[in-house]
């Protein structure tokens, strides 16, 4: 008996991950108990029922299409953020004068809460996917610009000088000196941009939506159907985690050459 308890203790001490899993399981059990016996079923439903009815969410007409649309919005917004951010970041970062004059403006814009102008995005881009993409880009583009400017700035002048003195053309300098040097900060920027794009697109979706997931979160909330709402939110959270994880893995993989 005590030997068994000691074993468990040793396993837990050696693998904090197991204990972490235990904490998560404990939270789910607490939620299950609270939802089953203590909370009005109009507001909360137990996780077992949410999981069991995930397929019901999936079968709600329009939900798979809405998830599809949201995923597309996220993808396009992220791609646009990276492309525009890369171009602007290089244009601003490579020229000291351009950096001094425009970086404060960019930082000021980065610092303002864009959420206040969300109604303007809807006004200009309509209530369809275009406004979600535009709002996502407005959140995703700034981290890319700022990290690229920082990455280019950290470039040692001696590298540029020696490349030039060995006869490198402008393109060669970009291709073989600037780009490789920029990669770690570029991927760090991409990770931040993914967080921003997720925030922007989901905010715009929740604000107003005709066919996207925002439409269904509103629908389920108004119908007091917590089972479906929790299911949909769980699917979206899983989506966000996967996207974040993909970008984070890419960051770890591609910034390795630099550290050693």
């Amino acid at each position, binding site marked *: 008996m005590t030997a068994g308890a000691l074993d468990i203790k040793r396993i837990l*001490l050696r693998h*904090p991950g197991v*204990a*972490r899993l235990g*904490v*998560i399981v404990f939270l789910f059990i607490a939620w299950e108990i609270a939802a089953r016996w203590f909370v009005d079923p109009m*507001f*909360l439903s137990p996780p077992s029922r949410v999981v069991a009815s995930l397929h019901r969410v999936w079968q709600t007409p329009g939900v798979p299409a809405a998830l599809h649309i949201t995923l597309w919005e996220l993808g396009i917004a992220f791609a646009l953020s990276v492309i525009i951010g890369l171009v602007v970041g290089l244009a601003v970062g490579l020229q*000291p*004068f351009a950096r*001094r*004059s*425009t970086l*404060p*403006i960019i930082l000021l814009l980065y*610092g*303002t*809460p864009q*959420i*206040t*102008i*969300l*109604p*303007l995005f*809807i*006004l*200009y881009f309509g209530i369809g996917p275009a406004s979600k993409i535009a709002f996502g880009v407005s959140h995703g583009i700034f981290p890319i610009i700022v990290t690229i400017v920082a990455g280019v700035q950290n470039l040692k002048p001696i590298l540029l000088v020696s490349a030039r003195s060995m006869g490198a053309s402008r393109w060669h300098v970009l291709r073989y000196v600037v780009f490789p040097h920029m990669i770690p900060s570029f991927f760090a920027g991409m990770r931040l941009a993914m*967080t921003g794009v*997720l*925030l922007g697109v*989901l*905010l715009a979706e*929740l*604000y107003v939506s005709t066919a996207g997931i925002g439409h269904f*979160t*509103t629908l*389920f*909330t108004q119908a*007091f159907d*917590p089972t479906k*709402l*929790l299911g949909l*939110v769980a699917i*979206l*959270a899983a989506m*966000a*985690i996967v996207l*974040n994880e993909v970008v984070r893995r890419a960051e770890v993989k591609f910034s390795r050459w630099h550290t050693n």
Partner: protein
Amino acid sequence: MAGRSGGRGWSLGSRAVQAAFLIMLVVLWYLATTRWRVNPLLLPNPVAVLRELGDILRSGEFVDDLRITLTELAIAFALATAGGIVTGYVISRAAYLIRVFEPLFAGIYSIPIILFLPLYVLFFGLGPASKIALGATIGFFPIVLNTIAGFGYVERMLIVAARSMGASDYQLFRYVLLPAALPVILTGLRMGFTIVLLSIIGSETIASLAGLGHRIVHLAEGMDMARMFAYIAFVVVIAVVLNMIVSTLEARGKRQ
């Protein structure tokens, strides 16, 4: 910074570019609404916006919304701070707890918590309670993570040295742990404040009955564009000022 490479001429030139950029923006805005006849429903005249802004400030009709938003902000930030610092401190006392809980909090922090807004509205209704609860939840994570980082990774040498010189628990906390952890915690508090502010205005925009975010949406739905632009400018200025105050406090706290 200006003196390091380039000197005074550089910084003067870049200031000129910044000023020219802003002036050009306003001039283009003015021309677009007067000369090129852009639909005033899409872009109101800057003079009209300025007049509306003056009217809003003079009539004081913003006071109610501002009070609601600031109250929500204060309560949510207080809850996030209290919860984050207490939880973070308790966890940071044992290396094992840090290894169990830090990845858990960091994982949740990477999910866009705004997703749960519909749940919060379902639980807490459309009033201030749902904004406070959401803001407190979102603000909790950067604060708890930075508190763990601050208290948890104090150099062991310092603690051992203080102990061997006979420091009591209180002395250890007051003269070793706190000074070492404070800068990191203050950074966490600043990050927490920024995103609490964001999420409160955001949730007011999405679903609410009052507050500055709600006022903007209300005007947008009424197609009262000039007044809406004026309110947007008002809210942006308030947000920037609040963030500046917090950054200044952070810098001052770190210096001590």
